[in-house]
């Protein structure tokens, strides 16, 4: 556990978070490893995890009939993945597939929600960090939508 706590504290997502909060959240964490090609989750499955990538690359994909899997984003070392565990009905809206050997810390969504409810200050801290991520993702998606390498 002590080891996981150290790894969490070093991950950019938890940078600057009070150590007692990190220690408390570490109770929800576990180590995971994925081989190239492994599906980490699939669209429609229950979403109950939050991933902090330590190493490797994961592709987020949407299946488009007639086109196959369209990659919409890749996440790598230092990134986090997944916030569907935060909002009902807690289901994934895309597939996540490891492109290479990937190591991650997986945090249990139900456990996180419970801890946030027990300690609202910690909950606010965690939600603020996740809100920042969602905002970053939204901005990136907007740039992808306006086709920034386009002709006009």
């Amino acid at each position, binding site marked *: 556990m002590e080891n996981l706590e150290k790894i969490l504290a070093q991950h950019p997502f938890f940078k600057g978070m009070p150590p007692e909060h990190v220690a408390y959240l570490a109770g929800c964490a576990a180590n995971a490893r994925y081989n190239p090609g492994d599906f980490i989750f699939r669209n429609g499955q229950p979403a109950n995890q939050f991933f902090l990538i330590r190493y490797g690359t994961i592709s987020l994909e949407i299946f488009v009939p007639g086109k196959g*899997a369209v*990659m919409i984003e890749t996440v790598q070392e230092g990134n986090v993945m997944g916030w569907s565990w935060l909002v009902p009905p807690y289901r994934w809206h895309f597939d996540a597939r490891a492109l290479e050997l990937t190591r991650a810390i997986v945090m249990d969504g139900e456990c996180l929600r419970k801890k946030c409810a027990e300690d609202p200050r910690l909950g606010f801290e965690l939600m603020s960090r996740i809100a920042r991520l969602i905002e970053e993702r939204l901005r990136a998606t907007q*740039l992808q939508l306006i086709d920034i390498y*386009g*002709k006009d």
Partner: protein
Amino acid sequence: MAARQDPMIPLPYRIETVQRETGDTFTLTLVPAAGDQIGPFAAGQFNMLYIFGVGEVPISISGDPSESGKLVHTIRAVGSVTRAMQRLKAGQVIGVRGPFGSSWPLEQAQGNDVVVIAGGIGLAPLRPVLYTLVKYRERFGKVILLYGSRTPEDILFRRELEKWRQRFDMEVSITVDRATGRWRGNVGVVTKLIPRAPFDPYSCIAMVCGPEIMMYYSVLSLKDQGVPTECIYISMERNMKCAIGFCGHCQYGPYFICKEGPVFRYDQVESLLNKREI
């Protein structure tokens, strides 16, 4: 062969090769058709290319500045002149005036990390920089190329990118907006690569080229990393006619892009970039 003087008179150049890069982009290699040729160029400069009876367009030089004689231009077919250029064949002759404009700050970059950020066709005006960085590699700190393209099929200069990527003294990261099936690289906008790139923000020169919106967001991200605006350079495009600072066609605030540009230090043009009417 002598270098010619009058900057308004195109010199005839014969197309030696036409290389298809992507569906809408191609590279012309030109050699002087008569005796005269234009003078040497610096990375970032452009020529005016003229198709007889169709029109003239400014196009950056995408070849190696240390190779004299041949001119290399990479062109994306977007309108009447560039589409007509796409139909040209080896052996045909076009007119060339140049080289014009300012260049990328390769001198200032010496001793510093160099971050080259390109979007779409913006890799073409930066290719001469990359040739120079590779040729005089020991003069620079870390060399990093971040390149964003719409899809894997739109990636320019694949073979060269692969060669540079395999070098141990260069970091090459490519990202696309979307991909299917076999793509194994990054997906996401080019600005996402900037925070991960291992350069020293306090001792680097960043050169950014692509559509204005892409340059704008790339500069924001560079600034977030702590890179001072005086160390960031961008290349601006406007319609041109004379290319020698006469006609005012390319005016951009207080500047004529054909003369003071196309390469500007970012703090020179920062206040103009967000003005809608310019």
